[in-house]
């Protein structure tokens, strides 16, 4: 079902087992705050036919038990949640530092991002490390943070042909978005660098390093420091 309508929030089916409530169609902190708050409310009051509730940048996906959920009841329940939920303020926090070794083999698309922006590679690094980012959501792969707050000069479209394998720790740009690949996976983001930190470890508690709502900042490091952190000879954060 297409999710259409002029006014947000709006809702509709993505397939027959996933009901999606959209709070907007742009990357925006307030819209995201609504999605996160709605998801929290939905989880708290979920009937047993709800399999899970997944907040994203600007929408919430409610996965339902295919065999048990009555579709009309799902829509009615979501409408009720929309009337009930409320957004609470996000408190200020010290940004979490992410060390990144930019360019070279770690960032094969740094040049194309620089060319697209009409600036040199050092300027891309300066702009990328100069912002405080909000973790809007985790998605795509375990622990993958979708970050908001990138300098608009760095906006670059995704690759038309996604890569088959992108190494863990790669830092990329796609459109208005920047993020980090926690595990090796295919993807169409332009890669500008790599972090030595392990963003996802199923045997660590918690398995993910970042969570939705956190603030973070990138710090440029050289190859030697990358190896020292990766080999555990230098702890991070210091």
């Amino acid at each position: 079902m297409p999710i259409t309508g002029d006014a947000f929030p709006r809702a509709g089916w993505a397939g027959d087992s996933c009901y999606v409530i959209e709070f907007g169609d742009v990357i925006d902190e307030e819209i995201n705050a609504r999605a996160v708050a709605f998801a929290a409310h939905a989880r708290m009051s979920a009937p047993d036919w709800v399999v899970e509730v997944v907040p994203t940048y600007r929408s919430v996906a409610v996965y339902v038990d295919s065999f048990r959920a009555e579709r009309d009841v799902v829509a009615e329940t979501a409408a009720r949640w929309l009337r009930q939920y409320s957004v609470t303020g996000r408190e200020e926090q010290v940004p979490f530092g992410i060390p990144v070794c930019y360019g070279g083999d770690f960032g094969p698309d740094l040049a194309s991002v620089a060319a697209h922006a009409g600036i040199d590679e050092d300027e891309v690094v300066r702009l990328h490390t100069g912002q405080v980012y909000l973790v809007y959501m985790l998605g795509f792969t375990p622990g993958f943070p979708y970050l908001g707050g990138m300098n608009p000069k760095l906006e670059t479209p995704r690759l038309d042909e996604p890569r088959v394998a992108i190494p863990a720790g790669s830092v990329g740009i796609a459109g208005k978005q920047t993020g980090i690949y926690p595990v090796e996976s295919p993807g169409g983001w332009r890669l500008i660098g790599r972090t030595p930190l392990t963003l996802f470890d199923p045997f660590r508690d918690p398995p993910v390093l970042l969570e939705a709502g956190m603030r973070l900042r990138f710090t440029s490091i050289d190859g030697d420091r990358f190896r020292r952190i990766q080999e555990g000879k230098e702890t991070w954060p210091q």
Partner: protein
Amino acid sequence: MAAMKMTVVKPGLFTTIQDLGRWGHQAIGMPVAGAMDWFALRVGNMIVGNPEDAAGLECTLSGPKLHFQGSGILAVAGADLQPRLNGEAAPMWRCFKVHDGDSLSFAGPVGKGCRSYICFGGGLDVPVVMGSRSTYVRAAVGGLHGRPLKPGDVLETGKEQPLVERTVGFAPSFEDIYAVEDVRTLSVIEGPQIHMFPRESFERFCAQIYEIGPNADRMGYRLEGPTIEHKAGADIVSDAIPPGSVQVPGHGKPIIMLADRQTTGGYAKIATVITADVPAAGRMGPGDKVSFKAVGLQEAVVRLKELARRLRDIRIQAADYRSRPRPVSSAPLKRPDKGSMIVTVEGEKHRVDWETL
């Protein structure tokens, strides 16, 4: 009955431990994984008397060669990859017993699908990671060390064995609606971003025959065929990707997103395969042909109810089979067709010969 062990002699092309998936963690970006053809896994588990969500082996094109230590029961369900027990043809969709020293192997696909499931009585005993035994290879989570099987691996079934003697031989009668056809038609409903495509794109998408390209794995299948144009760009602000989503990146080639799909993604989605047809998609592989048929939400729900009925029917057959009276000995009861007996009438004994006429 004790747990059965098995050694992996040959791992097969891509054999992983899967159950019905790791639901509940998509909010931290953990893909669901689980059996691609969950209909076959459910039925296979029912055949051996397991709960439907027990973990089994998902085999791809060439199955593994397994050597058993101890005895147990198993069933092979899904695409016919020609199972062999000690070199002899073994049945599909039927519970059979294996003994100490037996080996199970596969002769290869017969061209009707590429994924098959080996379900063992008691399921496979590997640690539950984040609520599931399913292998998600890209993050090395679940299954056996988060990876496909390797030669020398040792697997063990669960200790809770079903009623072995009452389950052996069970083969449900049902129509395998997911058998791969020359051109498999998958029903789809319009995708959440259908407004990002020109109006005629969806009809054109449904009118074409696509071939599953070489980039086809548990994450998704890239389809080869006519490209699909967008109105203005393929990118969206990333949102959730339900199973069966058909997304169209900038290159215009549609991709069906399946078990190992990422939880969220930024390509416009033109359609969603209905849940009842996702197992059919999951059994297919490179070179298979597929077309799409537009249906509404109501029909999708009707198809789901049919699927639920099918599963319930097999569940009833399984319960019925196990509750049938059985001879105590494992040898079949043979009723004689003639004999003699002594009959006492008014204190006098008479010998009577009888026979079945």
